[in-house]
């Protein structure tokens, strides 16, 4: 009982344990913030990746999958499947109305079923959604009429434009980063360039070379599309290189349309090859992805066997969206684990800090230890004072660290902006700190004591030095936001707290605080009581 009493009293009446708690707290907060940001980043990447893929992806290499509509019709009979859609994927050059040609990834989709699987319509940019309440002052959509935006949304959903004369033209929906008409600003939203915006401009032309499956020299195929809308899935990598076009047009571009077999003289044999798609995307009905994958895999193999389609096991794949995106997700996951491992070294810092501080405390409390031994305290009893002390410091430090970590993660956007572009008020606050430093320095000079002078000099350096640096940066426009939404994957730094990491880090901090306390505790237990009683 005395061990706990003394542990708490040492905590309450001394400054140095508070330093230990603060140090442990900072260590915990560091890990929590770094891993939470990495986890949040991974989560954003996953969500963005999943948004345009669904739960399960079926692929079959260059030749694609025959008669996907037939398979999908049968697959949807299964209650576990909510939706499925065929996708034709290819690469093409795009000629923009402003005479720029660049490469893009083309996805030919059936807009309706594609939306059912992926929520594609939610990613459309030019919509009247929210009537502009979520838009920034600079957002160009504020200047467009709701009617116009509604029309653009309808065209985007249909991937088609109906001209006034009733002609229906195939539409194209571009990633928001493709056109030069949108410039990403510091807030992560987009400003129009020269009041120019994509959907109402001239047609764009996609040119591609169909994949060669017949050992012939393929001819390039060019198709003009009406730009009907733009999309933003939140992942800039996709937003800057992908376009969506109608499935039929993509099939024309890739020779995946219905085809008749011909003999050596070019005459039809009567055999018809069904249209194909590069992949089939499937959304489950709430089941785990792996389970949906198994259902789709079994269903496809049965269907293909029945329909007489040969599956090449070397290239046929049924993958969950996570497996499909593994090449992209895995490095991010690995980076997170690397960060977790590297920053977990702060546990050793915790242990080292506690050890150093406890070493000092044991030395300071040697006489008390002698008194307790004289009163009959056992060696384990003496050790327990310091072990429990370590536990208390670890727990309080861990709680402080988790709270601090949560506060930082929760406000990371504000902190990011404040660090990148500090408010002018910071200059005045730091100036005030400098003035306090001057006062302390002067009072120390007057009294002859050195400590106030040293403290004053430090405050002067920090206050005036940092204040002047911030003023200079602001005056010369040198501010730079660390997580710059104009160039980063996502508009905002991730602010999701990783509670699992917080919990494990907190436990680790307690354990390593105890580890740090054990050696000084053992040393305390071994103190010779006679020597201890002579200790001053």
């Amino acid at each position, binding site marked *: *009982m*005395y061990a*706990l*009493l*003394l542990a708490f*009293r*040492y905590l*309450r*009446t001394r400054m140095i344990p508070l330093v230990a708690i603060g140090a442990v707290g900072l260590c915990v907060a560091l890990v929590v913030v770094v891993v939470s940001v990495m986890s949040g980043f991974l989560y954003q990447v996953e969500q963005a990746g999943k948004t345009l893929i669904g739960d399960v992806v079926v692929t079959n290499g260059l030749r694609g999958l025959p008669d996907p509509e037939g398979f999908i019709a049968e697959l949807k009979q299964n209650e576990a499947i909510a939706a499925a859609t065929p996708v034709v994927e290819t690469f093409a050059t795009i000629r923009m109305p402003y005479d720029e040609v660049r490469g893009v990834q083309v996805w030919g989709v059936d807009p309706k079923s594609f939306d059912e699987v992926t929520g594609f319509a939610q990613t459309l940019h030019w919509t009247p959604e929210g009537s502009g309440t979520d838009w920034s002052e600079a957002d160009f959509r504020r200047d467009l009429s709701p009617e116009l935006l509604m029309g653009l949304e309808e065209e985007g959903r249909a991937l088609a434009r109906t001209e006034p004369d009733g002609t229906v033209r195939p539409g194209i929906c571009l990633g928001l980063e493709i056109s030069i008409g949108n410039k990403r600003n510091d807030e992560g939203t987009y400003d129009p360039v020269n009041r120019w915006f994509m959907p109402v401009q001239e047609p764009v032309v996609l040119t591609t070379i169909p994949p060669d499956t017949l050992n012939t020299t393929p001819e390039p195929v060019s198709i003009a599309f009406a730009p009907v809308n733009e999309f933003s899935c939140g992942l800039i990598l996709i937003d800057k290189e992908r376009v969506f076009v109608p499935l039929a047009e993509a099939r024309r571009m890739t020779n995946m349309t219905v085809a008749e077999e011909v003999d050596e003289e070019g005459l039809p044999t009567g055999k018809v090859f069904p249209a194909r798609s590069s992949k089939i995307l499937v959304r489950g009905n709430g089941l785990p992805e792996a389970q949906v994958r198994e259902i789709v895999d079994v269903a496809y193999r049965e269907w293909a066997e029945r329909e007489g389609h040969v599956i090449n096991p070397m290239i046929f794949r049924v993958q969950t969206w996570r497996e499909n995106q593994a090449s992209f997700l895995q490095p991010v996951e690995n980076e997170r684990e690397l960060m977790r491992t590297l920053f977990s070294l702060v546990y050793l810092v915790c242990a080292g800090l506690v050890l150093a501080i406890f070493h000092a405390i044991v030395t300071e409390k040697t*006489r*008390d230890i*002698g*008194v*307790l*031994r*004289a*009163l*009959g*305290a*056992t060696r384990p*009893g003496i050790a327990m004072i310091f072990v429990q002390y370590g536990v208390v410091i670890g727990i309080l430090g861990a709680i402080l660290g988790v709270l601090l970590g949560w506060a930082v993660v929760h406000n990371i956007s504000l902190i990011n902006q404040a660090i990148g572009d500090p408010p002018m008020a910071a200059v005045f606050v730091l100036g005030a700190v400098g003035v306090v430093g001057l006062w302390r320095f002067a009072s120390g000079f007057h009294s002859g004591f050195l400590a106030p002078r040293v403290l004053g000099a430090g405050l002067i350096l920090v206050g005036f030095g940092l204040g002047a640096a911030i003023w200079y940066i602001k005056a010369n426009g040198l501010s730079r936001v660390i997580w710059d939404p104009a160039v980063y994957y996502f508009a905002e730094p991730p602010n999701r707290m990783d509670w699992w990491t917080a919990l494990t880090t907190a436990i680790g901090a307690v354990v390593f605080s105890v580890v740090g306390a054990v050696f000084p505790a053992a040393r305390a237990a071994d103190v*010779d*009581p*006679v020597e201890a*009683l002579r200790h001053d």
Partner: protein
Amino acid sequence: MTEPNMNANASTTVLQATGLHRTYRMGRVEVPVLRGVDLQVQEGEWLCVLGSSGSGKSTLLHQLGDLDRPDRGHIVWRGQSLTDMRRRERETYRNRAIGFVFQSYHLMPELNVLENVMVASMVGHDPFAWRSMRDEASARAEELLDAFGLGHRFEHRPAELSGGERQRVAMARALVNGPDVVLADEPTGNLDTKTGDDILDVLAERHRLGLSMVMVTHDPTIAARADRVVKMVDGVVVEHNAST
């Protein structure tokens, strides 16, 4: 000499030291501090060990209180040899049979007066046992502090007390477990004469009620208050005298 105490019984030996030797090593030099000390403490006796600085009297006290162990010789407490006791038994011996009073009080600055006294009871009990006897220990501590004129000082920290008050707290701590023997090492050494006399009066009162005491001092006037005085020179007892 003080009045004979109520329970004086010369035939009962509480503590007996026989042939105690203790040598300390200071670098390469061996310094013999005790060189064959024989001593007996009777039930209810106030024994003073008189000697100059370096004579070995404090070392003798540490041996009797089991804070240190002799190189040779042995100490017997009520028929039990400390040498034969297990570690746990020796810790219980220090907690229950012995009460220490130090020259420098050795109170814990983080604890208040009452806690400084009760800590001696806490040390002897595990947390579960302590819960059941806490009130009893508290009452005992309060009673002692009241008796020593510190009833209004329970919540005060040692830093808020005078030297005499601190020593009285230290005495209450030594007595709270009802020890067989109090071992007092120059208990008035840091006090002025008047305060020192007050402290001795308190101890004398406890002795009158039956407490056995071994007090180390270099002051013959203090020794004069004891039942018996032994004089130590260079680690040996050179003279056994009843106090006059």
